[in-house]
């Protein structure tokens, strides 16, 4: 590793261990300085290949720096900083160490130029994320964490298996476009691994299952790293894979449908992560320069506005202890700053002009139009309406306005507001000055988001979505319920199978018992008693016979043996003489 190049992820992963050993202001300083240092390192980095290490005859590349990895590294480092500011008040070193490690691993995966180091960093990410769920320290979070681990260990094994296949077929583990392997098992395995991490249904139920159970501050990191790191990997390996176009569009709608049914504030937002990642997956599938730029820009913008939304919902959860929309309402009077910042995030995700989503999401939608995919264009626009409906209208309506629940919160601690403020400011800056983001995208951007037609179209769509919302408001009242998702298979499916399994096992056990009885009692025991007879008659008799014979023999011998040493000596001397005679006469 060259001295001039320091891995920003390593700074976070190693530096995290400073946090438990310092106290007070110094601890808070470390929590802010570490991600700041990582961000500066990323910003100062020049494209090139750094940090190559020889390992088992392969080259591990820890620093593949190009335009694509750089833009993702900026937002991962920035979000680590914002998330740490939001978490400054938390008196739990474990959470801080884990969160910094998580961010460091995300940077590691971004700069990884080979499949093996990518695998290692995604495993570190999976473990850190599980710890952020477990550190909430409730029975529900512990159970959800185990389910998260179950899914991600499976995904990790798929990636490892794909890596081994490619290694054995080509002798190289470099991570680049997978199109050369299309149709092979390795292609499928690695694609499935990335799709699991990107929470693509039906492999994505882990996301809304685990994220609402994570700690208030930990969930902010979780919303950013795992899924967007997977989007990065998909762009890197699977750009232009046709199946992703339809899968992504379906995913955008899937998240919206579940968000209608959802009552838990953070779970509703989690379903909208799936919906938004759907746009990115769709963009990856379309694969044109505009689409890839769009997927990248949307991932960048998404990380920031989703952080604002999760921080807002987390602040309400922290202050009131309530997570169900049905139990909230009327909080705008006591939490106006939280509401304002939340709404910035909500406008950004809804692609309101002057907010970040407007300049990023529309690139993906336009790329669908540009390639004449009418169905995709309509589906993505439909999902945009749904996004505004839930994140911009339903959630704030029931949380902050609506029927006054009598709940009286207060603003969260100032560092939480600063964290939200930083991310909200980023949403507005990107929305107002899109070129700041566009100039870092992988391809040169010729896209102009602010045309009269685009602005009026968007405002019309959003405005009339709002009209529909108020007209149908009474149908939207949150209900205390859970919605079936594919996690049913490993949460209830298994227990539905268990009684059947039990019956089957009991049957097998009965048969085995019967067989055992017949074989054991009749044959084995019978054989045993026969052997015992044989033992008593033959063996014993033989042993006794041998004993008797030996006794007789020794009695006979006693007659010949006198026990006098001189006779023995004489016999020995005679023997020696005989041996000499043999040797001399050559007999």
């Amino acid at each position, binding site marked *: 590793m060259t001295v001039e190049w320091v891995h920003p992820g390593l700074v976070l992963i190693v530096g995290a261990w400073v946090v438990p050993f310092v106290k007070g202001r110094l601890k808070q300083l470390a929590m802010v300085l570490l991600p700041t240092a990582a961000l500066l390192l990323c910003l100062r980095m020049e494209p090139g290949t750094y940090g190559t290490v020889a390992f088992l005859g392969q080259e591990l590349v820890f620093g593949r720096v190009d335009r694509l990895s750089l833009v993702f590294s900026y937002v991962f480092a920035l979000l680590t900083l914002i998330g740490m500011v939001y978490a400054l008040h938390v008196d739990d070193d474990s959470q801080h160490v884990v969160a910094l490690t998580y961010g460091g691993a995300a940077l590691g995966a971004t700069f990884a130029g080979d499949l093996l180091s990518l695998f290692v960093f995604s495993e570190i990410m999976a473990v850190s994320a599980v710890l952020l769920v477990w550190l909430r320290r409730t029975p529900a979070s512990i159970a959800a964490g185990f389910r998260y681990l179950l899914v991600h260990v499976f995904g990790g094994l798929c990636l490892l298996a794909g890596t081994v296949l490619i290694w054995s077929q080509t002798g190289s583990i470099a991570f680049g476009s997978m199109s050369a392997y299309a149709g092979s098992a390795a292609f499928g395995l690695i694609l499935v691994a990335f799709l699991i991490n990107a929470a693509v249904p039906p492999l994505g139920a882990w996301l809304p299952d685990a994220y609402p159970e994570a700690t208030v501050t930990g969930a902010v990191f979780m919303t950013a790293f795992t899924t967007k790191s997977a989007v990065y990997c998909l762009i890197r390996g699977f750009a232009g894979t046709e199946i992703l176009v339809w899968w992504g569009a379906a995913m955008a709608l899937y998240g919206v*449908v579940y968000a209608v*049914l959802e009552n838990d504030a953070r779970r509703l937002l989690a379903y909208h992560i799936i919906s938004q990642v759907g746009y990115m997956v769709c963009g990856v599938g379309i694969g044109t320069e505009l689409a890839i730029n769009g997927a990248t820009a949307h991932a960048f913008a998404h990380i920031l506005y989703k952080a604002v939304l999760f921080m807002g919902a987390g602040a309400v959860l922290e202050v009131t202890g309530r997570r169900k929309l049905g139990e909230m309402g009327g909080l705008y009077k006591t939490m106006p700053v939280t509401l304002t910042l939340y709404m910035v995030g909500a406008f950004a995700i809804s692609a309101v002009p002057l907010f970040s989503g407007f300049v990023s999401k529309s690139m993906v939608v336009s790329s669908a139009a540009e390639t004449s995919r009418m169905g995709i264009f309509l589906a993505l626009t439909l999902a945009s309406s749904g996004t505004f409906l839930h994140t911009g209208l339903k959630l704030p309506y029931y949380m902050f306005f609506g029927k006054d629940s009598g709940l009286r919160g207060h603003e969260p601690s100032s560092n939480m507001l600063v964290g939200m403020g930083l991310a909200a400011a980023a949403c507005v800056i990107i929305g107002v000055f899109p070129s700041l983001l566009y100039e870092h995208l992988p391809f040169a951007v010729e896209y102009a988001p602010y045309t*009269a*037609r685009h602005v009026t179209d968007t405002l019309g769509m959003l*405005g009339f979505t709002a009209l*529909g919302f108020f007209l149908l408001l009474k149908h*939207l009242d949150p209900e205390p*319920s859970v919605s079936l998702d594919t996690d049913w298979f490993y949460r209830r499916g298994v227990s539905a199978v268990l009684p059947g399994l039990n019956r089957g096992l009991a049957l097998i056990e009965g048969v085995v018992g019967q067989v055992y009885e017949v074989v054991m009692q009749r044959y084995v025991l019978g054989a045993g008693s026969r052997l015992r007879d044989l033992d008593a008659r033959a063996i014993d008799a033989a042993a006794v016979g041998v004993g008797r014979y030996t006794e007789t023999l020794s009695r006979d011998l006693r007659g010949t043996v006198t026990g006098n040493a001189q006779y023995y000596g004489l016999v020995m001397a005679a023997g020696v003489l005989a041996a000499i005679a043999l040797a001399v006469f050559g007999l």
Partner: protein
Amino acid sequence: MKFLERQLEDPARLTRLKRWFYAGLAVVALSEIAAPYVFHEEHAEFAFENLPAWESVYGLISCAAIIIGSKLLGKLWLMRREDYYDR
């Protein structure tokens, strides 16, 4: 937030707010119809985009379709009691 509180809790002011909302919608829809005639900067990719106020109409349809479609799916199939997984 005292201002917002006054607007929302006074029925007369709330009605006025609603009226402003509808007026805003009318302005948005009209400007969407007018924009292509005033600015000739870009053409639509699909023919249906040239229908008058297409996005506004589609926004309203989308919103209704999402709410009704999802609720139907939920009621008929997906929604379960809150303690479904704990039993």
